């Protein structure tokens, strides 16, 4: 039996980690789908109809799985974190309700038209549906991140007593909801979603291009996959550098507003100046491996690097160590490594983008098999980076569910039994693993089936004419 607190935390972590994949796919695909639909309507070219229809199928499956897994998250605030919901409901419930009314309704209703209605509605309404679906996915992130950013940097509230319970009372909605953390989170998240889909597209396109040109298997619709690869690369060239730039600024914001999380990200135990930026760090004794308080660390680092990054250019800047924060600490090793791997991936994506862009420019994008392999291997890495980013954000703020206001352990439903928590955790482990397998299976099937045949499609064309006007006219 797992105790209710641990069980609830694991369950929320598990359901969030799985759920986030599907909104990342739909948020990241949204701008592509809007563009493909626009070009399909304006030019009538077969390639755009194929792109629109193929990626709409992937979007639709992601949306359905995202809906059913997201519903669980909304309910979990009530089932497993009832104390949190009672305490913070005044501030936290509003954004959730508005997400449903403003974003989810827009997305779900117009998705019906977007997926099923091409033959039923005119071009204008069809285009409006594409934009509405995309807008809905992004607005959804707005409200969720408004709620989440308030938990990271709470503002605009007072503590009050109601029905014998301490609750967080909203006093200044502008301070609460136009929260200082929100813009950082939103830009970083949305750019990450587009970057993840760009990597997915580039990797997928590279796979078929590789099969066709390097291995010499005849691939149907090879022009479609070349175009997909190019769209992925263009989006990656835009998003990858941005992600690292505002990621750096975001980390400085964390340093200023959540010093405990920053200390965990950098594994800084004792307050110090001239703190090195560790590339690698290990506790020096085995006993310290699982001890978040471990102080004896062997590391390879850049002297003054962490201070320099945190303070925007001063290697002498002081960083407050974890010892300054009484009580439980976040699991430092998880936060430290998740942060490092995420940052490393961010730089790898820039390298990929530049490499691919260079090969495209020199005209041998379709021949560089090493690049193809690198892109193929990187297909899921954007989503991995998003997962790691959320682990830094959510694990890094532990033990707090609302920073400096409410501990996670105090937010769990008071009446929850170990048996209930264990049963649902086990159930979700099975169901969510099954969902992941099923989703992967369906996506692979859609990919293997390839784009639909449309009039004038490229499959009749000779594969020896790889250049396409389609991917290069933007």
């Amino acid at each position, binding site marked *: 039996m797992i105790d209710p607190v641990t069980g609830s935390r694991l369950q929320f972590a598990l359901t969030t980690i799985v759920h986030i994949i599907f909104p990342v796919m739909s948020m990241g695909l949204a701008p592509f789908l809007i563009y493909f639909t626009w070009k399909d309507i304006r030019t009538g070219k077969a390639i755009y109809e194929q792109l629109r*229809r193929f990626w709409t199928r992937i979007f639709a499956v992601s949306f359905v799985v995202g809906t059913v897994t997201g519903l*669980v998250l909304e309910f979990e605030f009530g089932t497993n974190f*009832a104390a949190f919901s009672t305490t913070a*409901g005044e501030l936290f419930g509003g954004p959730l309700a*508005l997400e*449903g009314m403003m974003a989810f309704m827009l997305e779900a209703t*117009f998705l019906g038209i977007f997926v099923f209605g091409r033959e039923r509605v005119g071009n204008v309404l069809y285009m409006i549906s594409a934009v509405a679906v995309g807008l809905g996915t992004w607005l959804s992130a707005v409200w969720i991140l408004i709620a989440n950013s308030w938990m990271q940097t709470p503002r605009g509230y007072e503590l009050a007593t109601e029905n014998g319970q301490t609750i967080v009372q909203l006093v200044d*909605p502008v301070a609460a909801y136009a929260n200082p953390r929100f813009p950082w989170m939103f830009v970083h998240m949305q750019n990450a979603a587009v970057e993840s889909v760009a990597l997915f597209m580039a990797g997928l396109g590279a796979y078929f291009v590789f099969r066709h040109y390097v291995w010499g298997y005849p691939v149907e619709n090879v022009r479609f996959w070349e175009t997909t690869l190019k769209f992925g690369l263009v989006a990656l060239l835009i998003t990858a550098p941005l992600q690292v730039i505002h990621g750096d600024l975001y980390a400085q914001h964390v340093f200023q507003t959540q010093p405990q999380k920053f200390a965990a990200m950098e594994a800084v135990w004792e307050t110090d100046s001239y703190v090195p930026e560790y590339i690698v760090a290990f506790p020096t004794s085995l006993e310290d491996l699982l001890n978040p308080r471990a102080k004896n660390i062997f590391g390879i680092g850049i002297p003054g690097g962490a201070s320099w990054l945190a303070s925007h250019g001063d290697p002498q800047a002081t960083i407050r160590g974890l010892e300054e924060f009484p009580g439980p600490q976040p699991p430092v090793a998880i936060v430290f490594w998740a942060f490092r791997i995420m940052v490393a991936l961010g730089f790898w994506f820039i390298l990929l983008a530049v490499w691919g862009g260079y090969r495209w420019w020199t005209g041998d994008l379709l021949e560089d098999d090493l690049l193809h392999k690198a892109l193929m291997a990187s297909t899921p890495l954007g989503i991995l980076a998003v997962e790691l980013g959320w682990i830094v954000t959510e694990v890094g703020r532990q033990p707090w569910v609302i920073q400096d206001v409410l501990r996670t352990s105090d937010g769990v439903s008071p009446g929850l039994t170990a048996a209930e928590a264990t049963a649902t955790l086990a159930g979700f482990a099975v169901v969510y693993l099954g969902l992941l397998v099923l989703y992967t299976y369906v996506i692979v099937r859609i990919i293997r089936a390839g784009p639909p045949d449309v009039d004038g499609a490229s499959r009749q064309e000779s594969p020896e004419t790889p250049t396409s006007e389609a991917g290069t006219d933007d």
Partner: protein
Amino acid sequence: MTELTMPATLAAEPLFGLPLSDLWFGLVFFIFGMFLFLDGFDFGVGALFALRDDADEREQLLSAIGPFWDGNEVWLVVFGGTLFAAFPAVYANLFSRYYLLMFAILGALIVRGLAPEMYEQRHDEAWQRWWGRAFVVGSLTAPFFLGMFTANWLLGATTIVTLPGVVVGLAVVALTVVDGVAFLRVKTRGDLRADLQTDGYRALGAYLGLIVLTLGYVYAGVPALRSSLFSVPVAALVLATLVLAVVYAVATKEDRYYVAFGAAAGLVFALVGIVAGLMYPAIDRAGGLTVETAIVSTLPLNLMSIGAAILLPLVFVYFGVLYSAFSGPIEAGESY
């Protein structure tokens, strides 16, 4: 940004002196009703799916709800969100008290949501047989558990499995079938449309019987609710249920599909109205919370009210656009 301050009156008193706590009580139940009506016909279609073994007819059933069900299910998300925003303590109490039941609802909705999407992904017999079964099971269990949840909420039950919970669960399943038949008779034609008539009558009979049982139980077994049962609104809604049932039966017989569909909608809202009427002024009997004690404070309540007043009419516009884009019977071979 932070120099901006809200007008002081927003924090001081409810907008225009409106009885906002009561309005939100009504709104939460109205949204629940929208969910039960709209997703109700999706559930009903799932139940009727079990009774049809012709592959073409099954495709027609799925095509009928295809463009709609995502939007319909969002009403449940909005129900959860508005309950959380307006009555956070109730949201927390109910969902944690009926912990395993909530997860049963979620499990049913996961299965029901995935099944039609998966069914269309492959066209071999074994795959479609299993996802067809999943669709039926999800469509039957989701309204059943939702009915149990509603009964437990109303009666303030402290355990999950109660006799009235089971009876109301079955009643809600029957009601979704009534709803599903009415919807499909608008959306299909030919033999399928004609065949559904009998299913509709049977489900309606079952629903009325189960509702009589439930009201009898409330009268005999729950003295605290007896006076509410004879209050004007509740009595009127019970009477309205009978009238709507007659309208449904007659309209179905005379092939007036939209009238029958309207009557089915009326039956759903009458049921939700009866529950709300019996419950008021309490909102969480077992937790000892009334509408007045559970409502959030004035500032967030005013803000939510402004938000809902702007957004809900917009939502009706979206639904109007969607349902008019796909109005009338489905055409053969519609898909993406």
